[in-house]
């Protein structure tokens, strides 16, 4: 069959050759015209030139800013080779401080027996978390520098300064002293943010509900030196404050709380007590808060916190109190949900069902809605 096939292919080729149409002369013109159009240099409109120029300037500025911006610092641990590990806990020997040297010049000295870690670095600095003990930091002031120190529930933010931070979790004592520059500290018994300038100290004693602002002793006054010695312990006489005691309430004085103490301060005291693991004192502070500011939002918040800290039956009463005092409050939905939980836990089925009906009417898609439906379903059963 090969021969007929070849014959067909040949006839096919001949037929195509004999029937090829004439070439349209306009095709040549179109090809050359299209080529000439493509080859012609295009004038760049003035607007585009300006836009391009602006873009180039913006890129140049961005590159300049990036070059000038501080790079992420790395650090080295004294006596160890290579770059220090981010996130790993470092412990100084009991009789020897441990220096950390950062690439942009900052030096951090972990006091004897202290435990801390560099939990992260950014372009402007780093975050150092102190588990226990003290750190002495000489922060190099560069544009955009931002360093933070965490010490238990306390937060210290600095830009360029020399400071000592110490934290003893077992005794609940925090101390901060600033030799140069300024810092901002936040934490229990510190209302809002407290700024400390050169020569100032801040001590907080959680068990005693005490916050003291003081002055550094003369020998510790601003010096500008790079300290490489371990900071004195919180009870050191060198840093004895000038007894500037603030009006922070304590649970023991809650019954006779001075009117000057704000409801927010009682809430803060309750929070500190909870952090320190003293539920009774937390409760006392919350009750004092309610006595201090009846009818105010802080008192309602105290009721909510009392509900959270109480047994099921009593908790239900506190949540009812919150909902009565702040029906549109920020915690209303959570209080309404916890109210169902409390009634169910205390075995008060009918009250739980009533609370569930109220919850579903108001928050049909709320986080406690499934629980509310289960509570109502148990009625139909």
């Amino acid at each position, binding site marked *: 069959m090969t021969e007929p096939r070849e*014959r067909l292919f040949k006839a096919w080729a001949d037929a*195509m050759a004999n*029937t090829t149409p004439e070439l*349209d002369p306009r095709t*040549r013109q179109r090809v050359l015209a299209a080529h000439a159009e493509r080859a012609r240099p295009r004038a760049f409109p003035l607007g585009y030139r300006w836009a391009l120029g602006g873009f180039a300037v913006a890129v140049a500025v961005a590159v300049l800013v990036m070059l000038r911006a501080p790079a992420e610092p790395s650090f080295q641990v004294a006596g160890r080779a290579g770059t220090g590990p981010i996130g790993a806990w470092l412990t100084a020997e009991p009789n020897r401080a441990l220096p950390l040297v950062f690439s942009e010049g900052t030096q951090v000295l972990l006091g004897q027996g202290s435990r801390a870690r560099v939990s992260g670095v950014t372009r402007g600095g780093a975050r150092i978390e102190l588990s226990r003990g003290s750190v002495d930091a000489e922060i190099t002031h560069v544009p955009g520098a931002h360093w933070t120190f965490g010490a238990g529930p306390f937060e210290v933010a600095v830009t360029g300064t020399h400071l000592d931070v110490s934290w003893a979790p077992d005794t609940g004592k925090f101390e901060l002293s600033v030799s140069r520059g300024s810092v901002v500290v936040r934490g229990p018994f510190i209302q809002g943010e407290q700024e400390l300038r050169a020569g100032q100290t801040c001590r907080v004693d959680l068990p005693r509900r005490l916050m003291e602002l003081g002055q550094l002793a003369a020998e510790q006054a601003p010096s500008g030196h790079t300290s490489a010695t371990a900071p004195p312990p919180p009870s050191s006489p060198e840093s004895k404050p000038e007894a500037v005691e603030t009006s922070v309430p304590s649970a023991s004085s809650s019954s006779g709380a001075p009117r000057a103490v704000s409801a927010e301060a009682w809430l803060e005291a309750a929070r500190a007590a909870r952090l320190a693991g003293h539920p009774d004192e937390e409760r006392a502070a919350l009750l004092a808060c309610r006595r201090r500011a009846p009818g105010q939002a802080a008192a309602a918040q105290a009721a909510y916190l009392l509900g959270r800290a109480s047994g099921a039956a009593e908790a239900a009463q506190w949540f009812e109190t919150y909902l009565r005092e702040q029906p549109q409050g920020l915690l209303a939905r959570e209080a309404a949900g916890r109210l169902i939980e409390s009634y169910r836990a205390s075995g008060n089925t009918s009250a739980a069902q009533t609370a569930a009906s109220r919850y579903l009417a108001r928050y049909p898609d709320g986080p406690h809605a499934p629980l509310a439906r289960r509570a109502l379903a148990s009625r139909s059963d």
Partner: protein
Amino acid sequence: MATSGLFKPDAGSGRRLAEVHPALAPESDAQLVHALKRGEAGAPGRLYDRHAVGVQGMVYRLIGRDAELDDIVQEVFIYALYSIDKLREPAALKAWLLGVAVGKVRSHLRRRFRRRWLSFLPHEELPEPPAPSPEPAAELARDVCGILDHLPADERIALVVHRIEGLPLHEAAKACSMSLSTFKRRLAKGEARFMARAEKHPGLAGWLGGAVP
């Protein structure tokens, strides 16, 4: 008539002229490519004049009488002029042009295949089918193209480029941008499909049955 030393009246062929002076020799494809790359003014026209007939013939053999025949030829040359810098071997200009043409035809066939599925479109949006011709050659061409229309684009191209265009296997594979083994597979499949349909086609069965119609 005075004659210059560069021109002899009896030098009737380009080859002889070239022996007299290289400038009078016909321009080779390689020289033409260099002229195009230099941006010489008349080079695009010379490219078209030299290769348009070959390109058009090949496109016609691949797609048959089609309303877009001239458009495809135009696309081939526009692309070639625009992309001449991509041509690494200037002497292989013709083969390169055929490769470009095959690529354009492949795109066209696939477009046409997709368009065939758009039968829900109003008929005025589809191209007019060519009118039947009474000439036997035209009739055979039409019958063959009718069968080719049922072949996948790559098999159709392989069959035409090798069997009708007459390119050797390795050149045909190169023009189709395929490996030799892939080309052979496509060719075998395409040929088998074509023959199966041709045997059943009343206008072509006679060629295969021994008697020439």
